[in-house]
Each structure stands twice: as C-alpha cells, then as structure tokens.
C-alpha cells in the first residue's frame, strides 16, 4: 500500500518537474509566469554550497530549508519520494532483476567523499556542485540533450509524412503534429554544443541502474550524501519484529543499500524510505514509525578517506584557478556572458550549470562552455551570436537563474547592460571590402538610437560607374554587444561584424573606452 502511494507521489513530482521544464520557454510575454526553478530552489546542496562559495545569503531559500527540516525529521524521503532523477533511476532500475551485489556494498561511501569534496571546495569559493548535483544534472541533461533529441526525432518523423504529399496522410499527421506542438514540443528546434557529451553522461547514469539499481543514488549522488548526513538522527525509523525469519526478501528489494536484512546494521542514512521492505515482508515483520529508539549503524567513512576528500577539495581550488580566465584581454574573447551575469569570478562562484538559462534563451544563443571558462566553468552559459543573439527586450535568463549568477534585470536596466562590443571586419564586409550595398547590421541594430550608423561614400566600380555606398560604423558608446548584427550578417561563415567580450559592463578591467 505505502509502495503504491510512494509510486504515485514520485509520479506526481516527476510530472510537476516535466511540466515546469516545458514551461521554461517564452510565450512572447516579458515574464514566464511559472516558478520553473522551484526544484533547484528546494535543493539544499545547491543552497549550502552557494552560500559557502559566494559568501552571501540568497533570497529563495525557504524550500531548501523545508527539505532540510523534513530530512532531519523524516530521513531521506526526498530521495525516495520526490527527486525526479531518483524516480527515473527507479524506473530504469526496475528493469534489472536479481539480487543486489554484495561486492559493492561499501561503495555507498563514495557519495560522502564527493560531498565532502564539494563542501570543502565551495568553502574555499570553488563551486563545482552543479556538475554532480542531481537536479542540476537532470535539468542540464534534459535541456541540452534529451529534449532537443525528442524534438528532432518527432519533427523529422512528421516532416517525413508531410513530404509524402499524400493529402489524407498529411492532414492526419499535421493534425497530430499540431497537438504535439501544443503539448510538449519546443517552439523551435533547440541546438546545443556538447549535447552528445551531456547526453552520454546522462545515459551512462541511467545505464548504471542495470549494474545496480539506483547506482547513482546509492553510490554517487552528493545530494543523497548530504541528506544522508542530515538524516542521521531522523525520527522516522525502521523496526523489525520478532516474526522475522531472515528470509532476505527485504535485502533483495532494498533500493538504498541500507542492508535491512541484518537489523543491527540497518543504515538509516542509506534508507530512502521507499517502504518496499515493509510492503514485501512475507511475515509483515517490518514497520516504520516515529521515535522508536531503534539502533542504527554508523556511517563508517574511514578517517583517512575523509581527510583525503578534504585535501582533494582543498587542492582543487588552486588547481582550477591557475588559468588566466578572469584576466582581461587574456581570457577567451568570445566568452560573452548573458546580460546580468556577475563579474566572472563571482559568476563562477554561483553558477551551478543547470542549463535553465540555455533552455529558456529565446534565440538558442546561450550555449554551454567546455573549457572556454576553465574546467571550473564547464557547462556555464556563453552567448554564441552566430547561433543566436541576445534579444533586446528579453530578460528570461535572469528570471530562471536559481542562484543569482545571472541577476534578474528589469527591462530598462537590461537595455543598458553591455555584454560585449561589436566590431567590423572590413576585409569581409560587403560595402567596405566589395563595394556592394548591404547595411543589414544597421537595419537590425536594436538600440533606440542605433549603435550602428553609416557613412555615405561614392566609389567607382570596375566598370568606371560611380556608386553611392553606405559603410557601416559601430558607435562603441551605444553598442551593447547583443550580437543581432552578427547573427544576421549575410557574410556567412566568419561574419563581417562580430562581438567580443571587451567592454562588458560586469567587468572592471575588460574595457576599451575611457570612462
């Protein structure tokens, strides 16, 4: 019975998660209107490590505190009942039959070492949590890989029907397609750099369930580790009555690796309260209840290993910082951060690489970095104007950022923020180099007084005819670096006008003009 309630609860939370994921998309209004980042807001690991690394309190912490308090009382119910990645692991894991391995019995410690590493490094301002945090990982994988893949496959299928040109077939498929578009397909096909890489890691995590059910949850998940520590003295505990005949059915079913068939070794920190043992017990000997003084097994992490994890976390900080990332003029000039992004060092202390900003980016221009921002900044957002520019009146990335790495800006404020500056490559520009009219960059320039203006000149062409040409120029004072000119420049391949990060408002040093 409890098992059924648990499954329904998991299903509801997974559906809420997916629904909010689908709502993380512009409908043309200025605001999204839904709390799409609510799962990340509820993530205590992100909450704690962000406070550690940024050394600042942040606003939306009620839900994270709620999860912490719930865990202190009830144990890791979040893992067993709420976490959408846990639910997916659960679903894939149900395909694996057979007893849990005993050889991996002690691997549960890994997640605590990962946790210690993340906590220590974040304490010293290095925020790597997002790489392994399950919610961040799940949203990133869905945004960058799963959803684009599903969208592509669906569209390709319906396009194939459409191209048959057989009327009744086209009508039927187009009708279905229009419904799917309304229900779950994106407005436009998303494309992301590294979608295959991120997708591969996600499939790997799901695939590990076939090695061991909930492999990720048991052995790797740092959030599970944190909740495990918090659940150490939880009141909700498991008891086994004397009816138990050591049949081992519970051990067979256990999703958390809490080894429930040897009662004296029941690890409450590993129990995710799936209640399967309670449901399955043929003699009805297992019970969960409050405040029973039930003995629980210690965590037994090993002093040396804990010290090792702490040291690794410490060493990681300088190791990842010995790159010239934050130095003006040295770091990657195409590292154009979204508008509202904090100064680079502060930005990296907060960004949890969840990919919400990339998912919501209206032009698909926000892409995940690989090493452009150092290993520390892997999968953080960078604007690639050739893929998509920054829409002048859009503020969505700041609205969805869970940790304030991208500040939420009001429109007038956003319109003033420079994320870089555009410059013209005169060797490729049609009017400049080839005496051919163009001026698309000026046409599209979105600032109220255009940052791109033109100078009219008279040139003589090869035939000796005089032509009047409009040569584009960039007004660096007005340019905000949105990249619309670069996105629309008809000189394909390497564009004749392009944006680099120099002049970005958030940096004190990466400047060009005298103030």
């Amino acid at each position, binding site marked *: 019975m409890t098992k059924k309630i648990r499954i329904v609860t998991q299903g509801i939370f997974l559906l809420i998660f997916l629904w909010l994921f689908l709502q993380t998309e512009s409908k*043309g209004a200025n605001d999204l209107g839904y709390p799409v980042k609510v799962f990340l807001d509820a993530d205590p690991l992100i909450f704690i490590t962000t406070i550690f690394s940024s050394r600042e309190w942040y606003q939306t912490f009620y839900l994270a505190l709620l999860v912490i308090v719930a865990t202190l009382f009830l144990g890791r119910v979040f893992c067993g009942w709420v976490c959408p990645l846990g639910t997916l692991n659960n679903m894939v894991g149900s395909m694996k039959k057979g007893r849990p391995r005993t050889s991996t019995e002690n691997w549960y410690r890994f997640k605590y070492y990962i946790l210690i590493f993340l906590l220590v490094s974040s304490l010293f301002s290095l925020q790597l949590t997002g790489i392994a945090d399950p919610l961040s990982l799940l949203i990133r994988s869905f945004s960058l890989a799963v959803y684009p893949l599903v969208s592509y496959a669906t569209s390709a299928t319906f396009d194939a029907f459409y191209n048959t040109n057989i009327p009744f077939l086209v009508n039927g498929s187009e009708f279905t397609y229009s419904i799917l578009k309304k229900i779950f397909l994106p407005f436009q096909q998303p494309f992301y750099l590294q979608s295959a890489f991120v997708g591969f890691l996600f499939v790997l995590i799901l695939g590990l369930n076939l090695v061991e059910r909930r492999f990720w949850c048991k052995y790797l998940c740092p959030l599970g580790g944190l909740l495990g520590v918090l659940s150490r003295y939880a009141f909700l505990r498991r008891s086994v009555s004397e009816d138990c005949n050591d049949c081992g059915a519970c051990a067979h079913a256990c999703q958390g690796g809490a080894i429930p068939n040897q009662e004296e070794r029941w690890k409450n920190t590993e129990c995710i309260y799936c209640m399967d043992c309670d449901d399955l017990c043929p003699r009805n000997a297992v019970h969960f209840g409050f405040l029973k003084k039930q003995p629980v097994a210690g965590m037994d992490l090993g002093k040396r290993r804990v010290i090792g994890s702490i040291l690794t976390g410490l060493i990681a900080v300088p190791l990842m910082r010995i790159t010239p990332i934050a130095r003006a003029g040295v770091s990657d000039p195409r590292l154009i951060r979204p508008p509202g992004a904090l100064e680079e060092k502060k930005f990296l202390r907060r960004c949890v690489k969840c990919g919400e900003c990339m998912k919501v980016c209206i032009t698909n221009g926000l892409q995940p970095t690989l090493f452009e921002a150092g290993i520390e900044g892997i999968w953080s957002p960078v604007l690639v104007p050739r893929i998509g520019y920054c*829409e002048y009146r859009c503020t969505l990335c700041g609205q969805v950022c869970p940790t304030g790495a991208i500040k939420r800006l009001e429109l007038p404020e956003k319109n003033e923020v420079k994320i870089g500056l555009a410059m013209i490559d005169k060797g490729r520009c049609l009017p400049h180099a080839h005496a051919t*009219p163009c001026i*698309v960059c000026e046409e599209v320039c979105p600032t*109220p007084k255009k940052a791109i203006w*033109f100078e009219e000149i008279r040139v003589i062409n090869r035939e000796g005819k005089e032509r009047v040409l409009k040569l584009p120029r960039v007004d660096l004072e007005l340019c905000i670096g949105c990249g619309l000119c670069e996105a629309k420049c008809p000189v394909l391949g390497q564009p004749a006008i392009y944006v680099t990060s120099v002049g970005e408002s958030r940096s004190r040093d990466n400047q060009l003009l005298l103030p």
Partner: protein
Amino acid sequence: MNRRDFIKAALAAGVTLSFQGNTSMILSSLEAAEKVDLAVAHGVSPAGITKAAIDGLGGIKRFISRGDIVVVKPNMGWDRMPEYAATTNPNVVSAVIKLCYEAGAKQVKVFDRAVVDPRRCYKQSGIADAASAVGGIVSFVDDRKFKEVKLPGIALKSWPIYTEAMEADKVINIPIAKTHGLSTLTLGMKNLMGIMGGSRGRIHQKIDGSLVDVAMFIKPTLVVLDAVRVLTANGPQGGSLSDVKQLNMVIAGTDQVAVDAYGATLFGLKGADIGYVMAGHKAGLGTMDLSKLKIKRVNI
C-alpha cells in the same frame, strides 16, 4: 468581386435606379463608378479611419468576395509595442480583418516572417491578440511552407515564397510607414519581404529590383498603409518615442507604387526619392505620379 463584376453591378444598379428615377442616387452611383485610386482617411480612431479609407475606395466588397480565403499581412517583424511605430497598428489590422469577414471571407489568415523572435513580435506588437479577438487565424511562419517560385527577374529570378500567401484568394498588405537605413523608407512593397523565405539579408544587395519582383509576383488586392503613427528616425526597429510622429492617417489603394509614393510625402519626400518606388514605376507595376491619380480624402 473583381473589376469586371463591379462594372456589371454598377450598370445593373444604374438600370434599376433609372426606373426609380432618383437623380441624386444616380449621381452618387456615377461618382462611385469613377475610380478612386487612393483614399486617405484622417481621424483619431484607427479602426474608424481604416474603414473610411476602404469605403473611400468603394468599400470592402469591391475587394473581398464571399468564401474568399484572405491573407492579411501586417508588419509584425519587430519586438516593439504599438506606440513605438515599428509594427502595424493592431487596431488597423483588426479593422481590416473584421471588414473581410463582413464581406463574407471564409478565413482571414495573419502572419509575418519576423526579423527577431516571432513569439515576442506577435505578442508585443499587440497584433496577435487583436487579430485573434476578431477571428483572424494567427499563425507562426512554418519553414516547410516556403516554395521556390519564378519571379519577374528584375533582380531575382526566383525566391522561396510562403505558400499560404500564394494560395490565398486575396492578399491585403497592411504596412506601417517608417524610415529604413538602406531603402530610406519602408512602406508597402518593402513589407512584402515578410512572405519571403531564405536568407533575406542578401536581398539588400539589390533591394529595389528585388522588392519590385516580389510585389509584381504577389500583387496584393489592396494595400492599407498605416500612418496612425509613423517612425521618423532609427527605423525600421525604432525604440524611442521621440522618433514617433502621430499622423492619425490611413491610406488605402490598389496601386502598390501609388500608395508608397503617397507614403513618401508623409516624410516630406517624393516617390522618386525612394529607390523601389522609382523601380516599380519604371517596371510598370504602378504609378508614382500622384498628380495623375484621383485621391479621395476623408476626415472623420
């Protein structure tokens, strides 16, 4: 109703009226029979002057017949709110859609291939909401629905054009008058770029001829130029209210060149100052010589 039907109807009306012997009605029907080339309506209500301008040309029934599938093509190419005059006035658009339905149109479709994000353009311009409210079928441009077609070849031999615009019984072009860096002004003919597919940035290399090619190909039944507000600088996108001028005018006509030539006068220019107007005139698409046109002015 095409022109031939119109003449027949007018004759029939003349015959019945002559039986009744009402001279004033005969006179007014004669006046209607004398073709008005451009109707310029002035007044504070955008919807009111839109209707007045179309009535000035002889009413919507001159253009739309029962059962027609009509495409209304406003300018909603930019993410700007109506007061910034970068997109067609939503009330002008909805007034035209309403008239079409009153004339018995079966469907009135509304779309534009926006330059920036279409969701924001459709929403922020106010056009999607205004058009849907009066029954307009608003859709985003579907990339699969462009078809490469032969064009007259002044500048473009062929180009992908939106099939819904080609397959419609009638096309009504509803541009807004505003400045443009390359072509000085964007008016009716330039607004037709919204049914063009492909990489439109390249059009700019031969903009005048290209626009005439498309205008000759699509031949809108009617052009309704929105000059309720016009954008006088930093067009076509604008963004500053100080560049917007309130003219409270709507100009309607069937001659694409004539409408645009009249539009140029709103900015103190002549048709001949605008490259594509000149090119359209030369190609015989229409006339930019306003002195030869019968222009009806209405104030409401």
